[in-house]
């Protein structure tokens, strides 16, 4: 597992892939990126171009969705204020609360148990220097969201932490997102590699970030 992560960290593959996608898109000269209202970061997003393709977009999002709804992602995006645990998404033992900043409350702050790195051993607290839930004013709930709801939420700056295209793409390499692929001993991984996820994520975003139909599951 460790080996895999260090590979991802060091790998130039995602960057290369992005460059390839971007250059291809530019080469065919398609319209510029525009998701909903212009996010404040949109000025810096001009390097990303979108070729709208609802079929490809929805197809990519289906992959993205399986990852986001996997335990490794969803457990920290709960519908309530208590994180989830385990592949069955049960409420976190000892019921730690989100707190205003997402880092817990009082004697129950995430970092009291979750160390900067994974603690070795089965059932030991996984670690990250920045372990937290989304903050109280931006809960970014995954749990219970349909594909359509989640897709719409992910690109809505009011609900995604004011992220535009660039920040959304960058978020795929966020330390906590990556932690999903380094979950600590005995935990199942998301259903695809981080590279595959990132590819699907970028594809979804750069093909218009279409939301699947309401019937999609």
């Amino acid at each position: 597992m460790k080996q895999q992560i260090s590979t991802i960290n060091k790998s130039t593959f995602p960057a290369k892939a992005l460059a390839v996608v971007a250059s291809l898109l530019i080469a065919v000269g398609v319209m510029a990126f525009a998701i909903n209202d212009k996010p404040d970061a949109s000025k810096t997003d001009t390097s990303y171009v979108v070729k709208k393709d609802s079929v490809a977009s929805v197809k990519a999002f289906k992959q993205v969705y399986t990852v986001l709804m996997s335990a490794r992602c969803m457990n920290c995006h709960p519908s309530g204020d208590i994180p989830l645990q385990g592949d069955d998404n049960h409420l976190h033992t000892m019921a730690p609360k989100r707190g205003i900043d997402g880092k817990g409350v009082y004697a129950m702050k995430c970092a009291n148990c979750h160390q900067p790195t994974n603690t070795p051993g089965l059932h030991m607290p996984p670690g990250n220097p920045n372990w937290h839930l989304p903050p109280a004013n931006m809960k970014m709930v995954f749990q219970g969201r349909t594909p359509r709801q989640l897709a719409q939420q992910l690109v809505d700056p009011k609900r995604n932490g004011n992220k535009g295209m660039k920040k959304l793409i960058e978020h795929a390499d966020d330390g906590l997102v990556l932690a999903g692929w380094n979950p600590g001993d005995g935990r199942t991984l998301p259903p695809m590699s981080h590279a595959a996820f990132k590819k699907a994520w970028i594809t979804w975003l750069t093909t218009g970030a279409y939301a699947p139909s309401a019937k999609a599951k």
Partner: protein
Amino acid sequence: MEANAISRRNFLKISGLAGSALCLGTYFVAEAKNENLITAANAEKAGIEMNAWIHIDTNGKVTIVDHRAEMGQGSYQSVPQIVAEELEVDLKDIDVIFGEGNQEKFGNQITGGSSTIRGSYKNLLKLGATSRVLLVTAAANKWGVPLIDCYAKSGHVFHRPTGKKFHYGELVEVASKLTPPQDIPLKTRAEYKLIGKPLNRRDSPAKTNGEAIFGLDKKLPGMLYAAVERNPRMRGKVKSFDATEALKVPGVKKVFKVKMGVFTIYREGVAVVATSTWAALQGKKALKVTWDDTGFEHINTADIYKIQHEKLKTDEGLLLQKVGNPDAAISKAAKVIDVVYQTPYQSHSAMEPVNCVAWYRPEKLEIWGPIQAPEWVQDFVSKQMKMPKKNVIVNMTFLGGGFGRKAFMDYPHEAAVISKEAGAPVQVIWKREDDLTQGPYRPGITYRCQGVIDNGEMSVAKFRMAGQNIDHWSNGKSSGKANDSTSEGFLKPYFDSIKNVSFAEVVFEAPIPAMWWRSVYASTNGFAYESFLNEMAHEANKDQLDFRRAYLKDERCQQLIDKLEKVSGWKSRDKKSGYGVAITECFNTTVGQVVKVSRQQNGKIKIDKVWAVMDCGWYVNPDIIAAQVEGSVLMGLGAATTHEITFKDGLVQQNNFYDYPMPRIADMPPVEVHIMENTADAGGVGEPGLPPFAPALTDAIFDLTGKRIRKLPFDMQTV
């Protein structure tokens, strides 16, 4: 605070046995159960090694020996509270030390069966009173005044006509040479100044600033640390092991095979001895051990209950008690209520995992640890180590919980073996996982209960239980007689009022280490028998409390029911909530509980309140009693709704609190405790609050939902 910092032996030596101090104790007349009171000076003359319970030095400092373990149940407060009452000293002027394990001196020391107070309070009162009389007599002699004009108060003897006084320290030299009078009249309950009062616990301060020394806190100069990888199947052996990697861990000194006695069998493992706990644990992790798991059955939980259920269908078992003829009455009855209840195996899981310090030298083996039964440890370990009993000294530290587990002798024996092999004092630590997976456990038991309601009257109650007999296990063989705990928990007056009643044990043996667990068989019997009575009341269309009132004709039971009815507001209970009740007997104490539950907006059931009424007869400290009942309810809650030790292929499937989750603060229901006032003999306190909780809770859930729960544990989240 190390309660055993001065060993009892040293303190006698330091203070000087004869003359300069008053040292009062008892000695056992050989082979007799009667204890005689004696002073140290007289003991020396008579050549008797006595057990010093009370010691007063020339400064008036009083030291009392607590012969029982302090594992949370409050002996450290209750024992001095009793002695101080008759001795007429202020509690703050008393020091308490733990007695070392010694059956000859202290008699039965096992902290089990809720027996600390009920087993010794009369002696303790007598010891206090005798010491006081000796001191008052000494003062009268010194002054040359009539004894009747002298009285004791707050560690002094006063001369009433003149007001002159001596403090106790000034009197001990004379008092120690007097012969203790026998048969001193004791105070009545109305005269008590300390007993019966909710005085603060004297062990609290040391338990709030880190000073209290538990077993794991005991340190000795040059002490090494050990962790043991034991065969996860109790009867399994070590086939071979590879210590190469373990020995590479910095700090690891030695790796070797050990075996420890667990009653009649031996458990095997590989010990890693190191310079720190961490190094020992790392070394244990790095061990490669091959086990020999042949020659014994690898049991599965599903099979245990399958066998128990099957046996109960046809097997009448070994009869323990019978009134009337239940079988004949059942064969004639138009309708028989015939139900089966099932209860799970339980782990003790005290917060302080099992651990022990031993220091072996050829001429002396000293043991320190969280030990519930020091005299058993002395006896067992001396035999196993082939040492004279007097060369094995067993010291009790504070116990971070015991609940029955720490009355086993396996872990002190293992520590002794490791110390001997390591050639140094050694502390053996059991990881939480070791503590949880190695047992022993409360046995899981299945019950079949049959009854008949005849014209609204319960004419038959026939009970059979199928589950491991702890005695068979510890003796290594079946006695061929019914488990005498088969009717434990069931109130005795029922035998006078139910026309046909019987209890039988359907023998079930399993290779699982079984041990007492808080309230022992009453904890499971109580659930089955009291749930059954609630079902019978329902069948008879009677209110559960009225139903019990009709059969529990005993005056104390009637009073308890009245009290329970009153404090819980039973008669005016609201219809939206569910109310349940149960009354059980355990160690001569009767406890009734009413549990109130309601359904929350999220659909889940919540326990709103628990009312408990305890009749434990003569009692010492009502606040300690309330605390014990609060704790019993919480432990009962875990046992009823969460906890089950399961076995797969002979391996325990639970490891730590992540898969054997403890109730937490938000799970604690409000508990209101009431104590009956009466002058009857003292009953137990630490355990009897547990058995009625589960049946009262499931009765309340039935009241709310119409659903009978007959199998524990059940999930509160999905009821």
